[in-house]
């Protein structure tokens, strides 16, 4: 195997016995098991992995973790393709294919680099200023082509994503030394613990940094600690898992990457409900700001250390280290120990030896005290770095040195990772001491910070503090029982360690348009200057104008530097500036994991009719109506859906048909106050309702808008049957419950939804009575004994039934309710009656055409959220009612009394052309763009002429008016006609 040119022959935690082949930009490379994609690319000396977002400058790997702003790559091709994956987080797998996301013709030679050469044209907010004349649309297609990162997969995702709910007393985020210590302490205290770690194994930095804990090697400590965790009975560990969101009431969302295995989900979303949250999330290193600080070869010092120690990859052949704090010295030492040439350390502090308590000569590396990088050179990658010592006033360079080198490791200090803390409402403050956004004094009884997230760096103190904090939190959890006292373990924040002190990290000299603050969105100091010059004052506003911190990395390496720059430009202290808001998710989350299993068949619940199979056998075409799968028509032979509906309506009008109305909402209301209760909901006066009589009723929202319609029947003075439209059954039940529980708890009623208990079949047509009479029944079916708008309870063919005489088709109709488990028996009995040639099952298409002909209202089709009863001809009923009802007061608002409101009318086409629902209508003399719209349309069931219902401005005054109907550029004409279109005396349904 060809060893990568930057690969160090020995060391690291790689499995060198396992070579892993992969491709980048269609070229074959190889790495080792244990590599990330980023370390493998560096190992193969691939320096340019991306082009920057705006200026198309070459970019290389900048970090070794989730904060990566440069190495965002497209993985795979086809349906499994995924965009903007951070190469630093991708475990190297055999056959992995990665592609750059930008650069034409290639990432190495990108013609769009021209944007870099013309950079002054593309300052912050340029698109808001430049693309105004003559119109944004002139530029839109070009801008859309140039903008954006990555490509969407070109097929439906073939993988499975899972979702799980988890519960715990203590959730520990982060599986490094602090997190493990916290997990052991919380688990040891008897709490139910969940510990999550983003990497594939626990340990974090201590797994590779060679530290010593409690006087022994970190690896030996780690082995013991992991074993202790395993032995604790109530501790669960999830690796490869990122905590991405922290919400109210201790809800935390986690996303776990799947491990290999055919049956394993690609990702799993965990919704965790936890009592306490411990953040052991560590810290993220911040860069330095100087001219041309974005060239490939420039990398965070901590990352350089991780690459050399963990992955045995050198960041370059000659490395310069630049820092403002102590932490980068470890990088320099480790690079030197690994045999990499370290040119020197530029430390912006005047006297680092005092800070380090170290004779710098003992390092064997030149240290340039008081020097900060000023500029860099190199077109495709870093070639040289200029460092400078500033003059007394800090505005000019007093002396400078230039070094030829191909890597620069920079450290601008460490910022604790407190995103989850902030998302959950925790406050952050800028600390002058550390130059970091730290947690404000924590008094939370539910969230604890440990390790470097709490600003603690000395390893033994990390172990002690994390354990004590976790034990204190665990002591007050559900499992352990005590009451929270609000005490938090005080930390000994001795700052000996990484950020004992920090020096200058923003070079004050040089061209600010070449000093990058946000690498991913190509935001420079000049952009921030422009924003402040244009009087953007708030950090939130500057962020939105410049887009600093708004990229896919959400400013993990830029937020603090942006704050410091704005503060400097405005002459304020950063602490007085506040900070931008941290929102979930912490890192990008795939749509697949959010959708999880709720796709395809499980996108929404489906409800089946009790006799679903029976309908299917008869050629039913099913459609989804408010979760219910309902037959719209029953196809015979080569019939079209429209032909089938026409045949069905003819059969009903001529003889009889049967419609499955089982989804009809059914509610029983019991109790001595049931009548008083129900009367508060409907515009109809129920106080005159007689037993066994059916009343058509309409209910309103508080706004006066029509909410639902249906029927009410009194079975007994304390027992009522209520029906609702099929789609609103659950909503009406909730509505009744809400008013009962919140407003009228003194009324003694019980509301029992029973939709699923009863199957409902409408036997309708002129021969319906004749058919029903063939059943053995104890119900007198004669018109005098059982007239329209009545209900009878009895038996039909030995089956208990509630039979309504109500009609939505305009024909004589018996609406028969039987227990849903008897539905099939009943239908079999009905269909075996030989009195007609057949009883046609008919679907919703036929039913809706017939009801349209009768001018019957279909709530939600003919009405919308603004329709009041008077608009559809029910104003008089509402006005007559003496008692109060919900929505009544709104009916007299001026808006609801306007004479030119939209009102329901009938339309007859003048041209034998179908009317289309949604078409707009215009009156002949109209100056308005629209005078209303068609709400329903059909063809007359007997004469076949096109008819419709419309909501028309002052419609009831327009009878006979001819108007134009506009549908997608097609114009036709219709006349406003009286309703109904059919059987205006109602003789047929009263027959």
């Amino acid at each position: 195997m060809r060893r990568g040119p930057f690969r160090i022959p020995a060391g690291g935690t790689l499995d060198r016995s396992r070579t892993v082949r992969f491709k980048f930009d269609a070229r074959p490379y190889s790495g080792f098991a244990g590599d990330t994609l980023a370390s493998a690319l560096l190992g193969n000396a691939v320096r340019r992995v991306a082009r920057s977002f705006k200026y198309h400058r070459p970019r290389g790997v900048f970090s070794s973790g989730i904060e990566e702003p440069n190495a965002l790559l497209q993985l795979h091709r086809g349906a499994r393709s995924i965009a903007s994956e951070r190469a630093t987080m991708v475990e190297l797998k055999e056959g992995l294919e990665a592609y750059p996301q930008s650069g034409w013709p290639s990432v190495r030679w990108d013609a769009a680099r021209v944007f870099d050469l013309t950079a002054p044209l593309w300052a912050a907010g340029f698109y808001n200023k430049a693309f105004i004349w003559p119109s944004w649309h002139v530029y839109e297609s070009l801008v859309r082509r140039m903008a954006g990162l990555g490509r969407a997969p070109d097929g439906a995702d073939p993988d499975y994503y899972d979702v799980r709910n988890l519960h715990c007393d203590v959730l520990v985020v982060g599986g490094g030394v602090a997190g493990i210590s916290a997990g052991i302490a919380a688990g040891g205290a008897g709490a139910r613990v969940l510990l999550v770690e983003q990497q594939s194994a626990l340990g974090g930095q201590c797994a590779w940094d060679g530290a010593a804990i409690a006087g022994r090697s970190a690896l030996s400590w780690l082995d013991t600690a992991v074993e202790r965790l395993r032995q604790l009975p109530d501790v669960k560990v999830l690796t490869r898992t990122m905590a991405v969101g922290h919400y109210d009431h201790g809800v935390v969302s986690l996303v776990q990457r799947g491990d290999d295995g055919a049956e394993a989900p690609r990702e799993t979303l965990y919704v965790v409900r936890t009592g306490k949250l411990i953040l052991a999330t560590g810290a993220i290193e911040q860069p330095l700001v100087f001219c041309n600080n974005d060239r490939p070869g420039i990398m965070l010092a901590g990352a350089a250390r991780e690459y050399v120690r963990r992955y045995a990859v050198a960041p370059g052949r000659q490395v310069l280290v630049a820092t403002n704090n102590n932490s980068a010295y470890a990088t320099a030492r480790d690079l030197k120990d690994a045999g990499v040439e370290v040119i020197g350390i530029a430390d912006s502090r005047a006297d680092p030896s005092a800070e380090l308590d170290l004779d710098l000569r003992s390092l064997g590396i030149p240290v340039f005290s008081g020097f900060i990088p000023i500029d860099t050179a190199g077109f495709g990658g870093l070639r040289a770095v200029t460092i400078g010592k500033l003059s007394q006033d800090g505005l000019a360079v007093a002396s400078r040195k230039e070094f030829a080198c191909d890597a620069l490791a920079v450290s601008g200090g460490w910022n604790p990772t407190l995103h989850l803390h902030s998302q959950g409402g925790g406050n952050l403050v800028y600390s002058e001491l550390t130059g970091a956004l730290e947690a404000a004094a924590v008094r939370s009884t539910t969230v604890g910070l440990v390790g470097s997230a709490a600003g603690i760096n000395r390893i033994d103190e990390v172990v002690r503090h994390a354990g004590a904090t976790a034990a204190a939190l665990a002591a007050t959890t559900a499992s352990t029982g005590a009451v929270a006292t609000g005490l938090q373990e005080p930390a000994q924040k001795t700052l000996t360690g990484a950020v004992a002190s920090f020096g200058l990290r923003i070079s004050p000299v040089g061209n600010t348009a070449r000093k990058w603050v946000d690498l991913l969105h190509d935001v420079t100091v000049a952009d921030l200057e422009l924003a402040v010059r244009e009087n953007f004052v708030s950090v939130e506003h500057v962020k939105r104008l410049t887009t600093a911190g708004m990229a896919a990395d959400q400013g993990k390496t830029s937020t603090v530097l942006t704050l410091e720059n704005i503060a400097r430009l405005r002459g304020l202290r950063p602490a007085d500036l506040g900070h931008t808001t941290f929102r979930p998710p912490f890192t990008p989350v795939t749509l697949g994991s959010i959708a999880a299993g709720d796709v395809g068949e499980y996108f929404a619940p489906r409800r089946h009719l009790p006799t679903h199979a029976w309908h299917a056998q008869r050629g039913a075409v099913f459609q989804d109506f408010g979760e219910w799968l309902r037959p719209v028509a029953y196809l015979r032979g080569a019939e079209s859906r429209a032909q089938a509906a026409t045949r069905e309506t003819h059969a009903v009008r001529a003889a009889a048909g049967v419609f499955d109305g089982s989804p009809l909402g059914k509610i029983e209301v019991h109790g001595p106050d049931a009548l008083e209760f129900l009367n508060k909901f409907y515009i109809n006066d129920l106080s005159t309702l007689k037993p066994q009589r059916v009343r058509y009723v309409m209910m309103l929202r508080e706004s006066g808008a029509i909410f639902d319609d249906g029927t009410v029947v009194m079975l007994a003075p304390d027992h009522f049957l209520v029906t609702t439209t099929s789609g609103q059954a659950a909503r009406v039940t909730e509505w009744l419950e809400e008013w009962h529980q919140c407003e009228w708890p003194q009324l003694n009623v019980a509301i029992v939804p029973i939709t699923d208990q009863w199957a409902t079949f409408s036997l309708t047509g002129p021969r319906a009575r004749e058919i029903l009479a063939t059943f053995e029944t104890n119900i007198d079916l004669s018109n005098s004994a059982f007239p329209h708008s009545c209900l009878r309870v009895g038996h039909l063919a030995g089956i208990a039934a509630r039979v309504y005489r109500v009609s939505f088709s305009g024909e004589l109709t018996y609406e028969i309710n039987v227990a849903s488990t008897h539905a099939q028996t009943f239908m079999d009995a009905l269909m075996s009656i030989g009195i007609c040639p057949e009883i046609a099952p008919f679907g919703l298409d036929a039913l809706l055409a017939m009801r349209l002909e009768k001018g019957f209202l279909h709530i939600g089709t003919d009405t919308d959220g603004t329709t009041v009863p008077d608009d559809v001809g029910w104003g008089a009923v509402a006005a007559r009612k003496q008692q109060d009802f919900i929505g009544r007061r709104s009916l007299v608002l001026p808006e609801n009394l306007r004479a030119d409101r939209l009102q329901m009318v009938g339309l007859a086409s003048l041209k034998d052309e179908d009317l289309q629902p949604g078409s707009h209508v215009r009156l002949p003399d109209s100056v308005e763009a629209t005078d209303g719209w068609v709400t329903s349309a059909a063809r007359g069931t007997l004469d076949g002429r096109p008819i419709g219902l419309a909501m028309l401005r002052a419609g009831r005054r327009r009878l006979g008016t001819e108007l134009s109907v506009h549908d997608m550029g097609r114009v036709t004409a219709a006349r406003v006609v009286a309703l109904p279109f059919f059987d205006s005396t109602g003789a047929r349904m009263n027959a």
Partner: protein
Amino acid sequence: MLEVVPNHNAVEVPPALSTATRLQVRVGEARGKLTIRRVHSETSIWPGLPRAVGTSAVAECRVLCLGPSEWLAIAETLSLPSLRSGAFSAESGLIAVDVTCAIALLELRGSGARDLLSGGCGIDFDLRRFAIGRCCRTRLAMIAVVIDHVGENAYNLYCACSYLAYMRSWLSDKSRYLKP
């Protein structure tokens, strides 16, 4: 008055599920069911009913307390739960409505049941919190259900009959991904 004792073994769980089968889902046999409601807010609760929401009791039939004024009674057979008819009257303030045909029963048996339920439901099924004998009304796979912990690794799941096909399909789809 009915003698009611808290019961933790109301439903017999098939013994010795093979270790390979972490889960069996089957549609339960038809059983009579009544929803019981308290109409009068001031009347005291009939002592035959469990008082605490989320608990169950068993005498002639199993009774689940689903809300402050709501119970579900489930018989062992198709006939309606034989609660004393005198229990339901204007005086008692309790009413009962037959929901035998409205509610379907799915029986989940096996050590995978809890995992499966957690895939679509936010309830904490930890045995210390949702012990045998506990029940709850909640949402599973986006629909309203009642979950009744009837025995060791045994859960009865009640949903509206019209959702039965969807629920079965969801359970079977999700159980494919249960870890062995």
